[in-house]
């Protein structure tokens, strides 16, 4: 057992957190909201600031996603959680345990790497059993557990292959099994699906979700793919330029983006001056599927159709308003009769317009 700054112990065999204050480990421990707690964390590499004053709480058992474009600091935050880097300032804790400068091998946290990082000299089974054996599990028990894990990711029969003999999707599953085998409290996933092709990615998305529900382990996923984030996560944190912009459930993020970056990065948005949308704020946003387009007649917002593109379930219509702004609308019906150059009336239903805090 390892005592952490007098606050409690981490059982390094079963990766259980045992708070000192609670004599009964089964008793209700801490409020779920501060399972993982990141407090005012800043990370600098030389003169570059990768993360600036980030504060964030992640609940136990949550599927949490860090979403943002490349270079936004999401991977840095993940590496701080894993322990590969330590924060320049600020603190990270897990329940009551101070993780800030705890080395990665002492954290009940495992990572699925973007490159998978399978050990090239070990077969699949030994790869999966690696963490368990390091935790002191007997060879036999570790192997048994590894076999179970391989079964869970549907790789039974591949036990004695080497990593380079597997396809990308299979390597991905091995990496997942290897990280889940020690039953970590937190699983970190660094763009785990980015190297897979589209079809495989869809399949792995639902598989990841299934695994997370089955194990109840807290998942923290890093991705730049908003669709992936929206479809899998319980909550999403949108990041840009080393800063946390908005944290919330997928629907909240999509439906009530706080600022222009979030509005445009998560889904598509028309960002317009507030008064055009009937808002008091200087800027507002409305989703293209909420925009109403009428042919002919009079209205407050006339414009000219620039293009009509049929993309499958809907058509995307680009319109230049007489006031100069370009607006995108996504129409299920009524686009067939629209032609480029045609004069139309655009309406922005007030109940779907959203106030943006800043531009």
């Amino acid at each position, binding site marked *: *057992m*390892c*005592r952490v*700054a007098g606050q409690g112990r*981490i059982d*390094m*065999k079963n990766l259980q957190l045992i708070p000192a204050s609670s004599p009964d480990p089964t008793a209700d421990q801490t409020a779920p909201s501060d399972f993982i707690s990141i407090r005012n964390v800043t990370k600098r590499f030389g003169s570059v600031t990768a993360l600036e004053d980030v504060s964030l709480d992640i609940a136990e058992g949550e599927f949490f996603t860090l979403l943002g474009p490349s270079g936004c600091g999401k991977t840095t935050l993940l590496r701080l959680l894993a322990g590969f880097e*330590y924060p320049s300032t600020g603190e990270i804790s897990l329940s009551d345990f*101070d993780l800030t*400068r*705890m*080395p990665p091998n*002492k954290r009940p946290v495992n990572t699925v790497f973007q490159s998978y990082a399978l050990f090239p000299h070990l077969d699949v089974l030994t790869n999966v059993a690696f963490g368990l054996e*390091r*935790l*002191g599990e007997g060879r036999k028990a570790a192997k048994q557990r590894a076999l179970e894990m391989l079964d869970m990711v549907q790789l039974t029969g591949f036990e004695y292959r080497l990593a380079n003999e597997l396809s990308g999707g299979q390597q991905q599953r091995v990496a997942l099994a290897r990280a889940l085998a020690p039953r970590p409290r937190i699983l970190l996933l660094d763009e785990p699906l980015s190297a897979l092709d589209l079809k495989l990615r869809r399949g792995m998305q639902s598989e990841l979700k299934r695994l997370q529900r089955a194990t109840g382990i807290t998942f923290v996923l890093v991705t730049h793919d908003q669709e992936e984030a929206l479809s899998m996560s319980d909550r999403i944190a949108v990041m840009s330029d080393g800063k946390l912009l908005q944290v919330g459930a997928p629907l909240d993020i999509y439906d009530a983006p706080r600022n222009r970056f979030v509005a445009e990065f998560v889904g598509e948005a028309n960002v317009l001056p507030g008064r055009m949308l009937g808002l008091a704020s200087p800027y507002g946003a409305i989703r293209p599927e909420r925009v109403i387009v009428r042919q002919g007649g009079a209205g407050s917002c006339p414009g000219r159709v620039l293009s009509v593109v049929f993309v499958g379930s809907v058509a995307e219509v680009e319109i230049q308003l007489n006031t100069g702004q370009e607006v995108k609308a996504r129409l299920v019906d009524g686009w067939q009769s629209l032609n480029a150059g045609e004069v139309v009336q655009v309406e922005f239903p007030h109940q779907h317009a959203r106030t943006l805090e800043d531009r």
Partner: protein
Amino acid sequence: MALAEPFTAKDKVAASAKRRNLIPFLGLPAVAVIVCFMVGPMLIALSFSFLTAGVYGGVDLPFTIEAYRQFLFERNLDDSLSFDNSYLVIYGRTILLAGLTVVISIVIGLPTAWYMATRTPKVRERLVLLVTIPFWTSLLVRTYCWVLILRDQGLANGLLREIGLITEPLPLLYSYGSILFGLVYSFLPFMILPIYAALEKVDFRLIEAAYDLYASRAAIFLKVVLPLAKPGVIAGSMLVFAPSVGSFLAPDLLGGGKKLMIGSLIQMQFTTSRNWSFGAACAMLLMAVVLTVLVFAVRQSKKERHA
């Protein structure tokens, strides 16, 4: 490891800071060994070149520049000095032969490297192995092969006699030609491999597209092939020149030791002549030649990178 050792915040900070800074120290043993047993010895050689030669080898005090004086001047019976260019001639001849070796290596090595770099990856790998094998094979054995071929009763003369071109054996061995031949044979891989490395990174389709219609082959060679190969040519020239100018085996076995070259001159000072300080001085002058060329080559490649 059911029980992890207790650790405090202070420990953790120290451990992480240390791990980062300790890695460079891993290089210390290797660097120390080379400093002790190669840099040190070279410094000793440098200082020995300023000492007086011992009668039976070795060196004695006092410090003197006699060894370097001996390089340029002959001491007459009456202790007066007269200019003697025989050592300068040896150096000039060796440098000239090494320079010729470089030039011939470029002329042969450039097309070869170009050919290799334009093959498919699989063929490329095999060709690199084919060039690498001689690179690692005993220089003595490789030089000796040419003795077998070039000597009077050797394969070349034998064949020529067979087909009736000659009746008396041609004196192929023991000439500047045979030394040059041996040097090129010895060090050609050092030219091919760096040029290949430089050309390997080039996307040849771009050249093909750009010069599709309007350039003659000569123009392509001068304006495309040469500039692309230049960094490799510079590195290769250095790698061929340094061992050529200090070579011992090719002049000794193929030159018969009659055309004295720097390598043999230095070696003689430690065997038959037993003049260590002069030998050390000759070695230092050789080192100076190599370093001068090295500095020149580095400067050229830097200029290349900025251009």
